């Protein structure tokens, strides 16, 4: 899986199908503080993601 982080850096992760939430937590990210998209669509943190997926993580900046 290709994980695109909010700072635009990328991580290649080899994993069995897992809920996105587990991937985020392993990366030290609280699922409440980000949104995630796959193929340009928002997905929920309990969506199961696979090695074939490209997941973009969007940081919810505070304030404003």
């Amino acid at each position, binding site marked *: 899986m290709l994980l695109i982080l909010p700072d635009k850096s990328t991580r290649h992760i080899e994993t069995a199908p897992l809920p996105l939430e587990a991937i985020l937590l392993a990366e030290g990210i609280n699922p*409440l503080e980000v949104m995630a998209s796959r193929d340009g669509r928002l997905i929920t943190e309990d969506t*199961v993601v696979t090695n074939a997926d490209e997941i973009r993580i*969007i940081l919810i900046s505070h304030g404003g």
Partner: protein
Amino acid sequence: MAFPAHQRAGPVCSACAEPAVFFQRHTGLHLCGLHLIEEVERNVRTTISSRQMICPDDRVAVALSGGKDSTALLLILNRLLASRTDVQLVAITVDEGIHGYREDTIRSAEDLVSRLGIEHHCISFSELFGGTLDTFLKNRPEQACSICGILRRKALIVGAELAGATKLATGHNLDDEAQSVMMNVLRGDLPRLIRDTGTDSSGLFIPRIKPLSYMYEKEIAAYLMLSGAWNDLPECPYAVHALRREARSILATLEYRYPGTMLNLMKSKIKIKEACLGKIPSEPIRHCRECGDPCSGDLCQLCRLRQTLTL
């Protein structure tokens, strides 16, 4: 672990069969784009009506920084009030003068009001106070939020008065409000914990309303994304110095582990306020001996700040 194909495709909306884009953890509901937008607007409508935030003939000034919360607030109010000919919306933007941060958000605010056709007033710290926040914070960046808070409050009041507003609406969300409850408890500041700025029987203040105060920050972000109004804007560079940042992190962790924590904090605040009703004498409103503005002491916060910053 094997997951069935339908789960790999993602959960579906609890209200229809469309793919879910949002998981509302405190209710356990999954929502598709359409139902999330409906839920957000229903929530704001309920918050406004249950607290009688907007009345006939109101002229509501939205404090529009151009960041996500105020953008969502203006978009939602514009939609909810579209059929109300007896209520007017205006927007006020304060330029604090934060280099490398404010330029983008002000541009975003200008684009939004232009697209919606909403009257817009801009006011800057330089015009009002003779300098930018960046200059005031030289050698004291750790005081950024308290100094900016005092100056911003004054700038918004001036802007709202210039716009002839009867209400000042801010984009504070549930996360912000829960953080404030926690910070006031940590500081032991009971008067501030129970203070109500939404009504004013004295006629001295423009009442402040917070229509997003029961919306989670993540719901607002998803609403903007689905409305095509999401802008990936930076966070204020001074936010790193704030106690709020620590409160935010602690509360976000608690909310993740125990969904509904932030709503429960708000319920606690209401119960404390009800329990204190009539037991804590409200401070008499006085007038600042320097500027004449209403305040609780001899000098208002702004005039006290002027003495230290030589504004």
